[in-house]
Protein backbone atom coordinates (compact mmCIF):
# COMPACT_ATOMS: atom_id res chain seq x y z
CA UNK A 1 0.00 0.00 0.00
CA UNK A 2 2.68 2.54 0.97
CA UNK A 3 4.55 2.02 -2.31
CA UNK A 4 1.58 3.51 -4.18
CA UNK A 5 1.47 6.95 -5.73
CA UNK A 6 -0.83 9.61 -4.29
CA UNK A 7 -3.28 9.32 -7.17
CA UNK A 8 -3.46 5.54 -6.70
CA UNK A 9 -3.98 5.97 -2.94
CA UNK A 10 -6.75 8.51 -3.54
CA UNK A 11 -8.49 6.06 -5.81
CA UNK A 12 -8.24 3.29 -3.16
CA UNK A 13 -9.51 5.64 -0.46
CA UNK A 14 -12.46 6.74 -2.59
CA UNK A 15 -13.31 3.11 -3.41
CA UNK A 16 -13.12 2.24 0.32
CA UNK A 17 -10.40 -0.33 -0.39
CA UNK A 18 -8.29 1.20 2.37
CA UNK A 19 -8.85 3.68 5.19
CA UNK A 20 -6.75 6.73 5.93
CA UNK A 21 -6.20 5.51 9.50
CA UNK A 22 -4.75 2.23 8.21
CA UNK A 23 -2.64 4.13 5.68
CA UNK A 24 -1.21 6.52 8.28
CA UNK A 25 -0.53 3.67 10.71
CA UNK A 26 1.32 1.71 8.00
CA UNK A 27 3.52 4.73 7.27
CA UNK A 28 4.16 5.23 11.00
CA UNK A 29 5.19 1.58 11.34
CA UNK A 30 7.52 1.94 8.36
CA UNK A 31 9.02 5.13 9.84
CA UNK A 32 9.77 3.20 13.02
CA UNK A 33 11.23 0.31 11.02
CA UNK A 34 13.56 2.57 9.03
CA UNK A 35 14.48 4.86 11.91
CA UNK A 36 18.21 4.50 11.24
CA UNK A 37 17.81 6.58 8.05
CA UNK A 38 17.09 9.57 10.32
CA UNK A 39 14.52 11.04 7.94
CA UNK A 40 12.31 12.82 10.45
CA UNK A 41 13.17 15.42 13.05
CA UNK A 42 9.62 15.27 14.41
CA UNK A 43 7.00 12.58 13.76
CA UNK A 44 3.42 13.76 14.28
CA UNK A 45 1.90 10.33 15.04
CA UNK A 46 -0.93 11.39 17.31
CA UNK A 47 -2.17 14.36 15.28
CA UNK A 48 -1.79 12.41 12.02
CA UNK A 49 -3.95 9.53 13.26
CA UNK A 50 -6.54 12.01 14.55
CA UNK A 51 -6.63 13.75 11.17
CA UNK A 52 -6.86 10.37 9.40
CA UNK A 53 -9.89 9.50 11.49
CA UNK A 54 -11.54 12.76 10.37
CA UNK A 55 -10.60 11.97 6.76
CA UNK A 56 -12.27 8.58 6.94
CA UNK A 57 -15.45 10.26 8.21
CA UNK A 58 -15.36 12.61 5.21
CA UNK A 59 -15.00 9.66 2.82
CA UNK A 60 -17.92 8.02 4.56
CA UNK A 61 -20.19 11.04 4.13
CA UNK A 62 -18.90 12.02 0.69
CA UNK A 63 -17.29 15.37 1.65
CA UNK A 64 -13.70 14.39 0.86
CA UNK A 65 -11.35 17.01 -0.55
CA UNK A 66 -8.58 16.77 -3.18
CA UNK A 67 -5.94 15.21 -0.90
CA UNK A 68 -8.20 13.79 1.77
CA UNK A 69 -6.34 11.45 4.10
CA UNK A 70 -2.98 11.54 2.29
CA UNK A 71 0.03 11.62 4.64
CA UNK A 72 2.69 14.11 3.56
CA UNK A 73 6.08 14.99 5.04
CA UNK A 74 7.05 18.66 5.36
CA UNK A 75 10.65 19.84 5.30
CA UNK A 76 11.36 21.23 8.75
CA UNK A 77 11.61 24.81 7.51
CA UNK A 78 7.88 25.15 6.93
CA UNK A 79 6.32 26.72 10.00
CA UNK A 80 3.60 24.41 11.29
CA UNK A 81 1.12 25.69 13.84
CA UNK A 82 1.81 24.06 17.20
CA UNK A 83 4.44 21.69 15.77
CA UNK A 84 8.13 22.30 16.47
CA UNK A 85 9.94 23.81 13.47
CA UNK A 86 13.73 23.78 13.69
CA UNK A 87 15.30 24.34 10.25
CA UNK A 88 17.60 21.56 11.58
CA UNK A 89 19.38 24.13 13.75
CA UNK A 90 20.20 24.13 17.43
CA UNK A 91 19.22 27.80 17.45
CA UNK A 92 15.58 26.82 16.71
CA UNK A 93 15.67 23.48 18.54
CA UNK A 94 12.62 24.31 20.64
CA UNK A 95 10.82 26.80 18.38
CA UNK A 96 7.08 26.14 18.10
CA UNK A 97 5.33 28.46 15.61
CA UNK A 98 1.82 29.68 16.31
CA UNK A 99 1.04 30.04 12.63
CA UNK A 100 1.09 27.85 9.52
CA UNK A 101 3.05 28.48 6.33
CA UNK A 102 0.80 29.28 3.38
CA UNK A 103 1.79 26.26 1.27
CA UNK A 104 1.31 23.75 4.09
CA UNK A 105 -2.00 25.39 5.00
CA UNK A 106 -3.18 25.01 1.40
CA UNK A 107 -2.33 21.30 1.46
CA UNK A 108 -4.00 20.80 4.86
CA UNK A 109 -7.06 22.68 3.61
CA UNK A 110 -7.38 20.03 0.87
CA UNK A 111 -7.29 17.21 3.41
CA UNK A 112 -3.58 16.34 3.43
CA UNK A 113 -2.14 15.08 6.73
CA UNK A 114 1.23 16.16 8.12
CA UNK A 115 2.89 12.93 9.20
CA UNK A 116 6.11 14.62 10.24
CA UNK A 117 8.82 17.21 9.71
CA UNK A 118 11.85 16.06 7.75
CA UNK A 119 15.56 16.48 8.30
CA UNK A 120 17.57 18.85 6.14
CA UNK A 121 20.83 20.73 6.02
CA UNK A 122 20.73 23.46 8.66
CA UNK A 123 18.81 26.45 7.26
CA UNK A 124 18.88 24.64 3.87
CA UNK A 125 22.61 25.35 3.52
CA UNK A 126 24.11 22.23 2.01
CA UNK A 127 23.70 19.56 -0.60
CA UNK A 128 24.13 16.37 1.41
CA UNK A 129 21.84 16.54 4.48
CA UNK A 130 24.94 16.00 6.57
CA UNK A 131 24.88 19.48 8.20
CA UNK A 132 21.95 19.00 10.57
CA UNK A 133 21.93 19.57 14.31
CA UNK A 134 19.84 16.38 14.48
CA UNK A 135 22.44 14.22 12.72
CA UNK A 136 22.81 13.17 9.07
CA UNK A 137 20.10 11.56 6.95
CA UNK A 138 21.10 8.50 4.94
CA UNK A 139 19.96 7.50 1.48
CA UNK A 140 17.64 4.47 1.50
CA UNK A 141 19.34 3.19 -1.66
CA UNK A 142 22.46 1.11 -1.50
CA UNK A 143 25.21 0.66 -4.04
CA UNK A 144 26.51 -2.76 -5.03
CA UNK A 145 29.46 -2.33 -2.62
CA UNK A 146 26.97 -1.90 0.24
CA UNK A 147 28.31 1.51 1.29
CA UNK A 148 25.95 4.03 2.89
CA UNK A 149 25.16 6.86 0.48
CA UNK A 150 24.29 10.50 1.03
CA UNK A 151 20.74 11.47 0.05
CA UNK A 152 21.68 14.86 -1.39
CA UNK A 153 20.29 18.04 0.09
CA UNK A 154 19.25 20.24 1.49
CA UNK A 155 15.83 18.50 1.22
CA UNK A 156 17.42 15.07 1.81
CA UNK A 157 14.89 14.04 4.47
CA UNK A 158 11.98 14.88 2.18
CA UNK A 159 13.54 12.95 -0.72
CA UNK A 160 14.18 9.81 1.35
CA UNK A 161 10.71 10.09 2.91
CA UNK A 162 9.24 9.59 -0.57
CA UNK A 163 11.84 7.12 -1.87
CA UNK A 164 11.76 4.87 1.22
CA UNK A 165 7.94 5.00 1.41
CA UNK A 166 7.87 6.93 4.68
CA UNK A 167 5.29 9.40 3.29
CA UNK A 168 3.11 9.53 0.18
CA UNK A 169 4.69 12.80 -0.90
CA UNK A 170 6.69 15.62 0.62
CA UNK A 171 7.61 19.27 0.53
CA UNK A 172 11.11 20.45 -0.15
CA UNK A 173 12.55 23.87 -0.87
CA UNK A 174 14.96 24.83 -3.62
CA UNK A 175 17.38 27.75 -3.31
CA UNK A 176 20.16 26.39 -5.53
CA UNK A 177 19.04 22.84 -6.32
CA UNK A 178 17.84 21.61 -2.92
CA UNK A 179 14.79 19.81 -4.33
CA UNK A 180 16.22 18.59 -7.63
CA UNK A 181 19.58 17.28 -6.44
CA UNK A 182 18.20 15.05 -3.63
CA UNK A 183 15.39 13.96 -5.96
CA UNK A 184 18.08 12.77 -8.40
CA UNK A 185 20.09 11.00 -5.68
CA UNK A 186 17.02 9.24 -4.24
CA UNK A 187 15.20 8.35 -7.47
CA UNK A 188 12.12 10.54 -6.96
CA UNK A 189 10.47 13.44 -8.80
CA UNK A 190 10.89 17.04 -7.61
CA UNK A 191 9.99 20.38 -9.15
CA UNK A 192 11.41 23.81 -8.42
CA UNK A 193 8.59 26.13 -9.58
CA UNK A 194 8.90 29.60 -11.11
CA UNK A 195 10.03 32.12 -8.49
CA UNK A 196 6.88 33.57 -6.92
CA UNK A 197 4.52 30.74 -7.92
CA UNK A 198 4.36 29.40 -4.35
CA UNK A 199 4.14 31.67 -1.36
CA UNK A 200 7.19 31.89 0.89
CA UNK A 201 5.12 33.02 3.89
CA UNK A 202 6.03 30.81 6.83
CA UNK A 203 9.09 29.32 5.13
CA UNK A 204 12.19 29.93 7.20
CA UNK A 205 14.28 32.08 4.87
CA UNK A 206 17.74 31.26 3.56
CA UNK A 207 18.15 33.51 0.47
CA UNK A 208 14.84 35.25 -0.14
CA UNK A 209 15.35 36.15 -3.82
CA UNK A 210 16.09 32.50 -4.66
CA UNK A 211 14.08 30.37 -2.19
CA UNK A 212 11.11 28.55 -3.64
CA UNK A 213 8.81 25.85 -2.25
CA UNK A 214 8.14 22.72 -4.26
CA UNK A 215 6.80 19.18 -4.01
CA UNK A 216 8.65 15.85 -4.12
CA UNK A 217 6.73 12.79 -5.23
CA UNK A 218 6.82 9.26 -6.61
CA UNK A 219 5.80 10.31 -10.11
CA UNK A 220 5.19 13.35 -12.28
CA UNK A 221 1.38 13.21 -11.87
CA UNK A 222 1.69 13.36 -8.07
CA UNK A 223 4.08 16.31 -8.29
CA UNK A 224 1.63 18.09 -10.61
CA UNK A 225 -1.25 17.45 -8.21
CA UNK A 226 0.66 18.75 -5.18
CA UNK A 227 1.92 21.83 -7.01
CA UNK A 228 -1.49 22.90 -8.29
CA UNK A 229 -2.67 22.94 -4.67
CA UNK A 230 0.40 24.68 -3.23
CA UNK A 231 0.69 27.39 -5.90
CA UNK A 232 -1.21 30.65 -6.00
CA UNK A 233 -1.11 34.28 -5.00
CA UNK A 234 -0.62 35.17 -1.35
CA UNK A 235 -0.89 38.78 -0.13
CA UNK A 236 1.41 37.82 2.77
CA UNK A 237 4.34 37.38 0.35
CA UNK A 238 5.20 40.50 -1.63
CA UNK A 239 7.03 38.43 -4.26
CA UNK A 240 4.04 36.14 -4.82
CA UNK A 241 2.82 36.05 -8.42
CA UNK A 242 -0.82 36.85 -9.08
CA UNK A 243 -1.44 34.44 -11.97
CA UNK A 244 -4.07 31.78 -12.62
CA UNK A 245 -2.97 28.27 -11.62
CA UNK A 246 -3.99 25.59 -14.12
CA UNK A 247 -4.95 22.06 -13.14
CA UNK A 248 -1.52 20.65 -13.95
CA UNK A 249 -2.54 17.06 -13.17
CA UNK A 250 -5.86 17.33 -15.00
CA UNK A 251 -4.20 18.78 -18.10
CA UNK A 252 -1.28 16.35 -18.04
CA UNK A 253 -0.44 15.10 -21.52
CA UNK A 254 2.60 12.86 -22.05
CA UNK A 255 3.44 14.37 -25.42
CA UNK A 256 6.49 16.07 -26.93
CA UNK A 257 5.42 16.31 -30.56
CA UNK A 258 6.61 19.58 -32.09
CA UNK A 259 8.53 20.63 -28.99
CA UNK A 260 11.87 22.35 -29.42
CA UNK A 261 14.30 20.98 -26.87
CA UNK A 262 17.70 22.57 -26.23
CA UNK A 263 20.74 20.64 -25.07
CA UNK A 264 23.65 22.78 -23.90
CA UNK A 265 26.94 21.77 -25.51
CA UNK A 266 28.72 22.61 -22.25
CA UNK A 267 26.50 20.10 -20.44
CA UNK A 268 27.69 17.38 -22.81
CA UNK A 269 31.36 18.11 -22.14
CA UNK A 270 33.19 16.28 -19.36
CA UNK A 271 30.15 14.12 -18.67
CA UNK A 272 30.53 10.95 -16.66
CA UNK A 273 29.85 7.77 -18.65
CA UNK A 274 26.58 7.36 -16.70
CA UNK A 275 25.39 10.87 -17.52
CA UNK A 276 26.44 10.54 -21.16
CA UNK A 277 24.39 7.36 -21.51
CA UNK A 278 21.43 9.00 -19.79
CA UNK A 279 21.54 12.06 -22.05
CA UNK A 280 21.88 9.91 -25.20
CA UNK A 281 18.86 7.79 -24.29
CA UNK A 282 16.76 10.84 -23.32
CA UNK A 283 17.63 12.65 -26.57
CA UNK A 284 16.72 9.59 -28.66
CA UNK A 285 13.43 9.16 -26.82
CA UNK A 286 12.53 12.83 -27.33
CA UNK A 287 13.34 12.61 -31.05
CA UNK A 288 11.27 9.45 -31.32
CA UNK A 289 8.32 11.34 -29.84
CA UNK A 290 8.55 14.10 -32.43
CA UNK A 291 10.63 16.69 -30.60
CA UNK A 292 13.45 18.59 -32.30
CA UNK A 293 16.78 18.73 -30.49
CA UNK A 294 18.84 21.93 -30.73
CA UNK A 295 22.46 21.85 -29.60
CA UNK A 296 23.21 25.28 -28.16
CA UNK A 297 26.26 27.00 -26.64
CA UNK A 298 25.28 28.19 -23.19
CA UNK A 299 28.43 28.44 -21.04
CA UNK A 300 26.68 30.52 -18.36
CA UNK A 301 24.79 27.43 -17.14
CA UNK A 302 27.92 26.11 -15.46
CA UNK A 303 29.95 29.32 -15.16
CA UNK A 304 27.48 31.08 -12.89
CA UNK A 305 27.61 28.64 -9.95
CA UNK A 306 30.00 30.99 -8.06
CA UNK A 307 27.39 33.79 -8.54
CA UNK A 308 25.00 31.69 -6.47
CA UNK A 309 27.65 31.33 -3.78
CA UNK A 310 27.89 35.13 -3.62
CA UNK A 311 24.19 36.06 -3.76
CA UNK A 312 22.90 33.32 -1.41
CA UNK A 313 25.34 33.91 1.50
CA UNK A 314 24.88 37.68 1.35
CA UNK A 315 21.11 37.29 1.69
CA UNK A 316 21.61 34.63 4.36
CA UNK A 317 23.85 36.90 6.41
CA UNK A 318 20.99 39.39 6.53
CA UNK A 319 18.14 36.87 6.96
CA UNK A 320 19.84 35.08 9.82
CA UNK A 321 20.68 38.26 11.74
CA UNK A 322 17.42 37.88 13.66
CA UNK A 323 18.64 34.79 15.51
CA UNK A 324 20.21 36.54 18.46
CA UNK A 325 18.71 34.78 21.49
CA UNK A 326 16.46 37.67 22.47
CA UNK A 327 12.96 37.01 21.13
CA UNK A 328 12.95 33.31 20.32
CA UNK A 329 15.23 30.33 19.89
CA UNK A 330 18.34 29.26 21.72
CA UNK A 331 19.95 31.71 24.12
CA UNK A 332 23.47 31.22 25.43
CA UNK A 333 23.49 30.67 29.14
CA UNK A 334 26.13 33.31 29.72
CA UNK A 335 27.25 33.81 33.30
CA UNK A 336 23.89 32.67 34.62
CA UNK A 337 21.25 30.40 33.17
CA UNK A 338 18.87 33.09 31.92
CA UNK A 339 16.68 30.53 30.21
CA UNK A 340 15.41 29.50 33.62
CA UNK A 341 14.37 33.11 34.16
CA UNK A 342 14.52 33.09 37.90
CA UNK A 343 15.08 36.46 39.60
CA UNK A 344 18.54 35.27 40.62
CA UNK A 345 19.60 34.22 37.10
CA UNK A 346 18.30 37.46 35.63
CA UNK A 347 20.55 39.28 38.05
CA UNK A 348 23.51 37.30 36.74
CA UNK A 349 22.83 38.35 33.14
CA UNK A 350 23.84 41.84 34.15
CA UNK A 351 27.42 40.54 34.01
CA UNK A 352 26.99 39.73 30.31
CA UNK A 353 27.00 42.50 27.71
CA UNK A 354 24.33 42.42 25.00
CA UNK A 355 27.07 41.93 22.38
CA UNK A 356 28.42 38.96 24.30
CA UNK A 357 24.92 37.49 24.48
CA UNK A 358 24.52 37.82 20.70
CA UNK A 359 27.90 36.39 19.74
CA UNK A 360 27.81 33.56 22.27
CA UNK A 361 24.25 32.60 21.30
CA UNK A 362 25.16 32.52 17.60
CA UNK A 363 28.45 30.73 18.25
CA UNK A 364 26.59 27.97 20.10
CA UNK A 365 23.45 27.93 17.97
CA UNK A 366 24.80 27.78 14.42
CA UNK A 367 26.71 24.88 12.85
CA UNK A 368 29.92 25.33 10.88
CA UNK A 369 28.37 25.51 7.39
CA UNK A 370 25.94 28.23 8.48
CA UNK A 371 28.75 30.18 10.16
CA UNK A 372 30.88 29.79 7.01
CA UNK A 373 28.14 31.22 4.79
CA UNK A 374 27.24 34.06 7.17
CA UNK A 375 30.92 35.02 7.41
CA UNK A 376 31.26 34.87 3.63
CA UNK A 377 28.13 36.97 3.12
CA UNK A 378 29.21 39.51 5.71
CA UNK A 379 32.69 39.76 4.20
CA UNK A 380 31.30 40.21 0.67
CA UNK A 381 28.96 42.98 1.81
CA UNK A 382 31.64 44.77 3.82
CA UNK A 383 33.42 47.91 2.71
CA UNK A 384 35.86 47.36 -0.11
CA UNK A 385 34.41 44.04 -1.28
CA UNK A 386 30.81 44.89 -2.20
CA UNK A 387 31.58 46.09 -5.74
CA UNK A 388 34.06 43.34 -6.54
CA UNK A 389 31.74 40.53 -5.50
CA UNK A 390 28.10 41.40 -4.87
CA UNK A 391 27.63 44.10 -7.51
CA UNK A 392 29.46 42.04 -10.12
CA UNK A 393 27.44 38.94 -9.22
CA UNK A 394 24.18 40.84 -9.62
CA UNK A 395 25.25 42.09 -13.04
CA UNK A 396 26.16 38.55 -14.16
CA UNK A 397 22.77 37.40 -12.85
CA UNK A 398 21.24 39.96 -15.24
CA UNK A 399 23.38 38.62 -18.12
CA UNK A 400 22.24 35.08 -17.32
CA UNK A 401 18.59 36.03 -17.18
CA UNK A 402 18.83 37.85 -20.49
CA UNK A 403 20.53 34.82 -22.07
CA UNK A 404 17.69 32.54 -20.92
CA UNK A 405 15.08 35.03 -22.20
CA UNK A 406 16.77 35.05 -25.62
CA UNK A 407 17.04 31.24 -25.62
CA UNK A 408 13.37 30.64 -24.81
CA UNK A 409 12.21 32.70 -27.81
CA UNK A 410 12.66 29.54 -29.89
CA UNK A 411 13.02 26.79 -27.32
CA UNK A 412 10.34 25.11 -25.19
CA UNK A 413 12.53 23.27 -22.70
CA UNK A 414 16.17 22.57 -21.92
CA UNK A 415 17.29 19.00 -21.22
CA UNK A 416 20.21 18.63 -18.80
CA UNK A 417 21.59 16.26 -16.20
CA UNK A 418 20.53 17.13 -12.63
CA UNK A 419 23.83 16.25 -10.98
CA UNK A 420 27.37 15.48 -12.18
CA UNK A 421 27.26 12.00 -10.58
CA UNK A 422 24.76 9.65 -8.94
CA UNK A 423 24.61 9.52 -5.12
CA UNK A 424 28.02 8.98 -3.55
CA UNK A 425 29.17 7.29 -0.36
CA UNK A 426 29.84 9.01 2.94
CA UNK A 427 33.57 8.31 2.63
CA UNK A 428 33.59 9.92 -0.84
CA UNK A 429 32.47 13.36 0.40
CA UNK A 430 35.06 15.85 -0.89
CA UNK A 431 37.16 17.54 1.77
CA UNK A 432 37.28 20.97 0.12
CA UNK A 433 34.16 23.09 -0.01
CA UNK A 434 34.40 24.23 -3.60
CA UNK A 435 34.28 20.58 -4.73
CA UNK A 436 31.13 20.11 -2.64
CA UNK A 437 29.64 23.26 -4.17
CA UNK A 438 30.22 21.78 -7.65
CA UNK A 439 27.39 19.34 -6.90
CA UNK A 440 25.20 22.31 -7.82
CA UNK A 441 26.79 22.80 -11.24
CA UNK A 442 23.59 22.07 -13.19
CA UNK A 443 21.06 23.54 -10.76
CA UNK A 444 21.99 27.03 -9.50
CA UNK A 445 21.50 28.89 -12.81
CA UNK A 446 17.79 28.02 -12.68
CA UNK A 447 17.37 29.74 -9.31
CA UNK A 448 19.44 32.75 -10.33
CA UNK A 449 17.12 33.24 -13.33
CA UNK A 450 13.90 32.51 -11.38
CA UNK A 451 12.93 29.70 -13.76
CA UNK A 452 11.05 26.44 -13.16
CA UNK A 453 12.79 23.06 -13.51
CA UNK A 454 11.71 19.51 -12.89
CA UNK A 455 14.01 16.64 -11.90
CA UNK A 456 13.08 13.00 -12.33
CA UNK A 457 14.83 9.63 -12.35
CA UNK A 458 15.89 8.46 -15.79
CA UNK A 459 17.80 5.20 -16.15
CA UNK A 460 20.44 3.74 -13.90
CA UNK A 461 24.17 4.14 -13.40
CA UNK A 462 26.64 1.31 -13.86
CA UNK A 463 26.49 0.85 -10.10
CA UNK A 464 22.71 0.43 -10.19
CA UNK A 465 21.75 3.84 -8.81
CA UNK A 466 19.09 6.12 -10.33
CA UNK A 467 20.30 8.86 -12.66
CA UNK A 468 18.71 12.28 -12.51
CA UNK A 469 17.41 14.10 -15.57
CA UNK A 470 16.33 17.74 -15.52
CA UNK A 471 14.04 19.86 -17.71
CA UNK A 472 14.20 23.65 -17.51
CA UNK A 473 11.56 25.94 -18.98
CA UNK A 474 10.73 29.63 -19.23
CA UNK A 475 8.74 31.35 -16.47
CA UNK A 476 5.37 29.71 -15.76
CA UNK A 477 6.03 26.76 -18.08
CA UNK A 478 5.28 24.19 -15.34
CA UNK A 479 2.62 22.48 -17.47
CA UNK A 480 5.12 21.90 -20.30
CA UNK A 481 7.67 20.54 -17.83
CA UNK A 482 5.11 18.12 -16.41
CA UNK A 483 4.04 17.04 -19.92
CA UNK A 484 7.58 16.43 -21.21
CA UNK A 485 8.61 14.87 -17.89
CA UNK A 486 5.61 12.59 -18.02
CA UNK A 487 6.52 11.51 -21.54
CA UNK A 488 10.12 10.74 -20.58
CA UNK A 489 9.19 8.77 -17.47
Amino acid sequence: MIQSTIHALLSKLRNKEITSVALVQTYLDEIEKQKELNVYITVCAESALKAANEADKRYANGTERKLEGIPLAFKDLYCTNGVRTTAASKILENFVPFYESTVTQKLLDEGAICIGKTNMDEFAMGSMTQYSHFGPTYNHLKRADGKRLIPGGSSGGSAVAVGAHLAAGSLGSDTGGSIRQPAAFCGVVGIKPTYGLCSRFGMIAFASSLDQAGPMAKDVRDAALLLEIMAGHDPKDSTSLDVPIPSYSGNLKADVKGKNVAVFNECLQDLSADNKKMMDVAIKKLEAGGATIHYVDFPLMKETTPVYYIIAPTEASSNLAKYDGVRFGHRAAGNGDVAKATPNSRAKTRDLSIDELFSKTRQEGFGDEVKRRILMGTYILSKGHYDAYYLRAQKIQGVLRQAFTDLFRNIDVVLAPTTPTPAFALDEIPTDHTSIYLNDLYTTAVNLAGLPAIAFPFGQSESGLPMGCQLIGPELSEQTLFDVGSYLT
Partner: protein
Amino acid sequence: MSITKAEVIYAAGLAKIGLTDQDVEKFTTELGGILHWMEALNNIAIPDNMPLYRPKNLVCERDDANSTPDYSAQFMTNAPDPQHDFFGVPKVIE
Protein backbone atom coordinates in the same frame (compact mmCIF):
# COMPACT_ATOMS: atom_id res chain seq x y z
CA MET B 1 41.99 37.03 -3.71
CA SER B 2 42.78 35.71 -0.29
CA ILE B 3 41.32 36.67 3.05
CA THR B 4 43.35 37.38 6.17
CA LYS B 5 42.73 36.26 9.74
CA ALA B 6 42.09 39.88 10.68
CA GLU B 7 39.38 40.12 8.01
CA VAL B 8 37.71 36.93 9.27
CA ILE B 9 37.74 38.33 12.81
CA TYR B 10 36.33 41.64 11.51
CA ALA B 11 33.51 39.85 9.59
CA ALA B 12 32.72 37.71 12.65
CA GLY B 13 32.46 40.90 14.70
CA LEU B 14 30.04 42.42 12.19
CA ALA B 15 28.03 39.17 12.07
CA LYS B 16 28.13 38.81 15.89
CA ILE B 17 29.46 35.27 15.79
CA GLY B 18 31.96 34.26 18.46
CA LEU B 19 34.92 32.32 17.06
CA THR B 20 37.69 30.36 18.75
CA ASP B 21 41.29 30.71 17.54
CA GLN B 22 40.91 27.36 15.78
CA ASP B 23 37.73 28.60 14.07
CA VAL B 24 39.56 31.69 12.79
CA GLU B 25 42.34 29.51 11.42
CA LYS B 26 39.91 27.10 9.74
CA PHE B 27 37.57 29.73 8.24
CA THR B 28 40.51 31.81 6.93
CA THR B 29 41.72 28.82 4.92
CA GLU B 30 38.25 27.75 3.77
CA LEU B 31 36.94 31.19 2.84
CA GLY B 32 40.22 31.92 1.03
CA GLY B 33 39.70 28.81 -1.11
CA ILE B 34 36.11 29.77 -1.93
CA LEU B 35 37.06 33.37 -2.82
CA HIS B 36 39.79 32.06 -5.09
CA TRP B 37 37.21 29.84 -6.85
CA MET B 38 34.96 32.87 -7.33
CA GLU B 39 37.67 34.65 -9.30
CA ALA B 40 36.53 32.65 -12.34
CA LEU B 41 33.66 35.14 -12.59
CA ASN B 42 36.15 37.74 -13.81
CA ASN B 43 36.18 35.87 -17.14
CA ILE B 44 32.48 36.54 -17.79
CA ALA B 45 31.95 39.59 -19.99
CA ILE B 46 29.42 42.11 -18.69
CA PRO B 47 28.01 44.70 -21.13
CA ASP B 48 28.68 48.30 -20.07
CA ASN B 49 25.03 49.18 -19.66
CA MET B 50 24.01 45.97 -17.90
CA PRO B 51 21.30 46.77 -15.37
CA LEU B 52 21.31 44.97 -12.03
CA TYR B 53 19.06 41.95 -11.87
CA ARG B 54 15.92 42.43 -9.83
CA PRO B 55 13.03 39.98 -9.52
CA LYS B 56 10.37 41.67 -11.62
CA ASN B 57 7.39 40.84 -9.46
CA LEU B 58 8.30 42.95 -6.46
CA VAL B 59 5.49 45.47 -6.79
CA CYS B 60 2.70 43.51 -5.15
CA GLU B 61 0.78 46.12 -3.19
CA ARG B 62 -1.49 45.67 -0.22
CA ASP B 63 -4.00 48.01 1.33
CA ASP B 64 -2.34 50.36 3.76
CA ALA B 65 -4.28 48.91 6.67
CA ASN B 66 -3.48 46.91 9.76
CA SER B 67 -4.25 43.29 8.97
CA THR B 68 -2.42 41.64 11.84
CA PRO B 69 -4.15 40.93 15.12
CA ASP B 70 -2.22 41.38 18.35
CA TYR B 71 -0.06 38.29 18.63
CA SER B 72 2.13 39.56 21.47
CA ALA B 73 1.04 36.84 23.90
CA GLN B 74 1.83 34.10 21.36
CA PHE B 75 5.21 35.67 20.55
CA MET B 76 6.16 35.50 24.22
CA THR B 77 5.64 31.71 24.28
CA ASN B 78 8.91 31.26 22.35
CA ALA B 79 10.87 33.92 24.27
CA PRO B 80 13.90 32.52 26.11
CA ASP B 81 13.52 34.98 28.98
CA PRO B 82 9.99 36.43 29.15
CA GLN B 83 9.62 39.09 31.81
CA HIS B 84 6.08 40.38 32.25
CA ASP B 85 5.16 41.31 28.64
CA PHE B 86 8.74 41.98 27.59
CA PHE B 87 11.80 40.11 26.31
CA GLY B 88 14.39 39.98 29.08
CA VAL B 89 17.88 41.03 27.99
CA PRO B 90 21.11 41.94 29.74
CA LYS B 91 21.63 45.59 30.63
CA VAL B 92 22.24 47.55 27.41
CA ILE B 93 23.20 51.00 28.75
CA GLU B 94 26.43 51.10 30.75
